[in-house]
């Protein structure tokens, strides 16, 4: 079977038509995973959750497949009376799965701040909230920006899993075209290229961000 460039080009609008969903899901999932991961880490630090429990939870989350989370949220939760729209399940599933990784990112980002920073801030008479918001949080954000960006690429590449719960994203729409036309090569190539370009662009952005962060403002 020849690769039909004209046909490939004709699939582009359909596939790009759902690029918004793909990116939107990735952005929201990354935000959700960050919030969850950050909360896990803060709870662990505050001592409200013992370290070994948190360790177990994070390992558990990370060692279960994304698909298991998606199926669980989509097919099992309704048995308990919780029925969520597919899009919500998708974002929630990816958020939960990646929160395990992002918790580690935040742990490293916080650990990397020398103890002396909070002490110097306290010694100046700053209250706790100001110590966190003006001294610790900015440094943590600087430390996590690049790794969060890298995880964002991973999340983006995990969005095709959402096809199994019928969220309209790029790989799913490519497969729809394929099953309607019996031509797989063109739509799948197109979707592959789109993901490649997206991932490269984001990686480039993360690189630039990292270089900027490693500039004069870094210690």
């Amino acid at each position, binding site marked *: 079977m020849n690769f039909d460039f004209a046909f490939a080009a004709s699939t582009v609008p359909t596939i790009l038509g759902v690029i918004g969903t793909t990116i939107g899901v990735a952005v929201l999932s990354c935000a959700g995973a960050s919030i969850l991961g950050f909360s896990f880490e803060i709870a662990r630090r505050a001592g409200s959750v013992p370290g070994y429990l948190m360790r177990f939870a994070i390992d558990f989350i990370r060692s279960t497949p994304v698909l298991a989370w998606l199926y669980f949220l989509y097919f099992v939760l309704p048995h308990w009376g919780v029925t969520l729209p597919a899009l919500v399940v998708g974002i929630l599933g990816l958020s939960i799965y990646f929160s395990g990784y992002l918790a580690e990112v935040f742990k490293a980002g916080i650990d990397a701040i020398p103890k002396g920073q909070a002490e110097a801030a306290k*010694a100046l008479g700053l209250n706790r909230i100001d110590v966190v918001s003006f001294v610790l949080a900015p440094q943590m954000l600087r430390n996590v920006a690049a790794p969060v960006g890298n995880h964002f690429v991973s999340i983006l590449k995990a969005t095709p899993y959402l096809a199994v719960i019928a969220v309209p994203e790029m790989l799913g729409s490519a497969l729809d075209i394929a099953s309607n036309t019996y031509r797989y090569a063109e739509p799948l190539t197109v979707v592959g290229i789109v993901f490649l370009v997206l991932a490269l662009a984001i990686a480039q952005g993360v690189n630039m961000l990292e270089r900027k962060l490693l500039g004069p403002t870094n*210690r």
Partner: protein
Amino acid sequence: MSDGQSMRQAASWPAEIGQQHGARGPDQTAAVEAAALNKWFGSFHALKDINLAVPQGGRIVICGPSGSGKSTLIRCVNGLEPFQSGTVRIGGVDLTRDQKQLQKIRRSVGMVFQQFNLFPHLTVMANCTLALRRVLGKSRTEAADIAAHYLERVRIPEQAHKYPAQLSGGQQQRVAIARALCMNPKIMLFDEPTSSLDPEMVKEVLDVMIDLAADGMTMLCVTHEMGFAREAADQVVFMDQGSIVETASPATFFAAPSQERTRLFLDKMLR
């Protein structure tokens, strides 16, 4: 130094601190007074029954071998380190573990660390103005004026727009001193301020500290710079294994220490 005058004039205890020692005038109140201070890290007895008074305008140098508790003591003075028994009084006010009270007291106690601890994400100027604005509620321009004044005093006015990582160690430490001075503290605590500096930068920092001493700043200073102790201190405290072993004037301390442990230490230091 002429601008030192204005610095001292402006320095005054917060009203509520002044009121607590009743009849006695503030001049008789020790700037820092530790009494029967004991501190444990777990089962390790890090400070043993420390009694130390720093009079207003006093300049005390603490020295002693590594692990003797010098940092721990100085950190107890501004509440960075909690202690189990005894009292620490700053300008006559007992340190408690109440955060609000600690925050208030810390405004009048400046601290300079061995590792500088400048905020790397903020410019030199922003390092200096952060507490002025957040703690003292100064306006941006007011804070900038104050910061510029103290950066001038530590002789780096031209670096205000730079980030800490763009400065040498000596410059960073001088910014750290300026940052603390901006709060117009009554007392300055120094914990080995020159220990992590390259030798050629030690002097520029010590010079700033000697200026401060000459201006009458009350200073409690952990350092092994014996030249500084001779020139600027009026008392040298020698600590070993969590205890104060000997307190003497610099002249006596170096020439005729009364304790064997002090002598051994000095032999090693001055060899």
